């Protein structure tokens, strides 16, 4: 079992979600984050004072899946989330030791 942490551009969320659903991913968790990377932020000006804001709004997806799915999932994500421009984001793959479904107490693959 692996956990994919995926940082994407906000407006790509629906595409990625659909791509993953189509692949058989049954659940995912989403949060709003701010990212700092190659993509530049923007300037804000309030009453003549300039502020450089380095962080860009991004969406973070967290998906736990069976190891076999990972490779294909990454492909789908790249396809759906890519615009070819900087700031497209990244996929981080982390190991997961176990999953428990709270409702049923199921563990492991059955709980994903």
């Amino acid at each position: 079992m692996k956990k994919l942490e995926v940082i994407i551009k906000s407006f790509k969320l629906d595409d990625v979600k659909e791509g993953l659903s189509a692949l058989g991913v049954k659940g995912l968790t989403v949060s709003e984050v701010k990212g700092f990377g190659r993509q530049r932020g923007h300037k804000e000006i309030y009453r003549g004072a300039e502020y450089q804001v380095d962080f860009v709004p991004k969406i973070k997806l967290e998906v736990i899946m069976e190891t076999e799915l990972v490779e294909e999932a990454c492909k789908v994500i790249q396809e759906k989330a890519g615009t070819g421009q900087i700031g497209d984001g990244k996929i981080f793959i982390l190991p997961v030791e176990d999953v428990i479904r709270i409702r049923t107490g199921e563990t492991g693959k059955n709980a994903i």
Partner: protein
Amino acid sequence: MNAGDTVFVLVSAALVMLMTPGLGLFYGGMVRNKNVLGTIMHSFILLGVITVEWVLIGYTMSFGPDIGGFIGNFDMFALKGVGMEPTEGSTIPHSAFMIFQCMFAIITPALITGAFAERMKFSAFLIFSLVWAILVYNPLCHWVWGGGWMGADGALDFAGGTVVHISSGAAALIAAIMIGKRKGYGSTAYLPHNLPMTITGAALLWFGWFGFNAGSALAANGLAANAFVVTHISSAVAALTWVLAEWMHSGKPTTLGAASGAVAGLVAITPACGYVSPVSAIIIGGIAGVLCFGGIMLKGKLGYDDSLDVVGIHGIGGIWGALATGLFASVAINPDGANGLFFGNPGQLWIQFVSVIATMAFSFVMTFIILKVVDLIVGLRVSEEDEERGIDISMHNETGYNS
């Protein structure tokens, strides 16, 4: 001069002034977070731009001595001769009338901005609005109220159904088509980012509209009271019927529906408010709510992206109001007016119809030309990237909310 009438018009002017930022909130709540400031700014900055235009040339173009029924001359350039004394036959200071009318000139182009929200270049918007005010609003205002041909024809428009709503609704349609759909149209959900803001805006509009409609009586008399009453009734009923219509159509009554319906009712009663009875207002408002609810569903079918439904509400609502005036007007309410179809005078409906068509045609053509020219000069639309980042950052280097 009458102190009572003077307070009435001054307070009404203040109320109408408040409508423009109120409109900013009404619109601002409906756009996405990243466009809230740019959207509010569209209304707010017109308080600046149009005021200057109006005091310099707008007032005299609208209310100056008539040239051929089409436009006023420049005798009152920069308010020359617009002083503290009443004009003949009036009971209020001339300058009070001028500033009351100024507020109408401001809100009209502000209404249009809902059509191109979330994607218009700020500079293009400024130029467009200024030129539109000069070349579309001022003539129309003159036609109807300033001694021009439409008023002479007998068209009834108590508080601006044609001048304000049909003109802006028509302009909105052209603008929405010409600037094109927002990025992601059809796939992205454009959810309103802050509906309490929209409702607050609607409340301020409703409040200010009392000044708009009742104030148009220019005197604190029975006619003003009647205009006040029918305004309130129409708005109330339209809020209800819109909500009922959507309850039946989509299964749930919504707060945005209630707010939209209220505005639709206000729009529809605007030309009629000085000529119709409370019972007529119930019918006018009731139909307005359903009609404009239908109106906003149109755009999905016809495929233009009128972001905040200016066509559906001000266009459709304004047309209905102008025609309704031709149906329900009664000299029992206003002896200076005329009877409508239901009071035995079918001719009035025809006059109203002509005024609607003329206004629409004029606004269509002029808006098209102005936008074409502005597009050539500065370009109407922000870049794709700017649209994605939002116009708050790209046009104004600001964000609406920080922590």
